[in-house]
C-alpha cells in the first residue's frame, strides 16, 4: 500500500492545457444554452435546462477540473456516496412534503 502511495505521489497523471480549455469551452457553451432555454419563457424547456444542463456542467467540473476522472475507484465511490446521501435527503424531504 505504501509503495502504491509513493507511485501516486511521484508519477501522477498529468493532463495537458488543451483538454482543460476544451472543457471550459463546453462549459461556456452549455451556459449559453441554459440562458437561451430560460429566455424562451417555456417552463418545460427551462426545467430541462435545470435538470439536464446544470448537472452536466457540474459533472464536467467534477470529472475534469476536480480530476475525479483520473482518481482511484475508491474515491469515485466515496463521491458517489456523498452525492447519493444528498439526493436521498432531497428525495425524502420532498416526498414528505408532497404526500403528507
Amino acid at each position, binding site marked *: 500500500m505504501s509503495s502504491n*502511495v509513493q507511485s*501516486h*505521489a*511521484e508519477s*501522477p497523471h*498529468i*493532463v*495537458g*492545457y488543451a483538454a*482543460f*480549455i476544451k*472543457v*471550459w469551452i463546453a*462549459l*461556456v457553451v452549455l*451556459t449559453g444554452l*441554459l*440562458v437561451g432555454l*430560460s429566455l424562451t419563457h417555456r417552463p418545460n424547456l*427551462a426545467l430541462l*435546462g*435545470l435538470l439536464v444542463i*446544470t448537472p452536466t*456542467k*457540474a459533472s464536467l*467540473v*467534477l470529472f*475534469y*477540473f*476536480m*480530476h475525479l476522472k483520473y482518481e482511484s475507484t475508491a*474515491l469515485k465511490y*466515496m*463521491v458517489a456516496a*456523498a*452525492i447519493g*446521501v*444528498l439526493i436521498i*435527503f*432531497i428525495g425524502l*424531504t*420532498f416526498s414528505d*412534503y408532497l404526500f403528507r
Partner: protein
Amino acid sequence: MSVPAEPQVAEHAGEHRDYVGAKLGMWIFVFTELILFGGLFVAYGMYRSMHPLEFHKASGELNIALGVTNTVVLLTSSLTMVLSVVAIRLQRKVQSMFFLACTMLLGAVFLVNKFFEWRAKFHHGIFPGSDHLMARPPGERLFFGLYFGMTGLHGLHVTIGVVVMSVMMVFLARDRIRHNDFIKLENTGLYWHLVDVIWIFLLPLFYLAA
C-alpha cells in the same frame, strides 16, 4: 532497555508527506460543504414549491446579465486554477504563478460584480428586514432571504478562496509548492472548483427562475 534512536531521527529529518491522505481529507471537507449547501437548496426547493408564483415574480427582479457574467467569470477562474496546477507539475513556476494570479483577479472581479448587484438591491430597499421587503408577500420575502443568504454564503467562500490563494502564491514563490509536492495547490483547486459547482446551481435557481 536501549531504544534505537535512528528511526525517530529519520522521522524528524524526513518531511512527512501523504499525498493520497491529504487529498482524501480535502474531498471529505468538500462533502461537508455539499451537505451544507444541499440543506439550503432543499430549503429553496420547499419554499419555491409553496410559493411558485411569488418566487417567479421576485426572480424577475434579478439582473440576468450580471448573473451570467459572473458565471463566465467563475468558470474561467476554474480554468486558470486548473492550469496553475498543471503548470507547476510541468515545472513551469512562473506560468503557475501567473495562472494563480489570474484566478485571484477573476475571484475579485466576481466579488466586485456581486457588490454592485447587492448595492443596486439595497438602493431599491431590498435587503433582509427592510420595511420595503417586509411589506411584500411572504413568498417574495423568502426568495430574497434565500437569495441574500445563499449568494452571501457563496460570496464568503469566494473571499476565503482568494485569501487561501494568496497564501499559495507565497508558497509558490518560496518553492514550498514544487513540481513533486503540489498537494496544497491541488487542494486549493478542489475548494475553488467546489465554489464554482455551487454557483453553477445558484444561477438557474435564482437568476433564471423567472
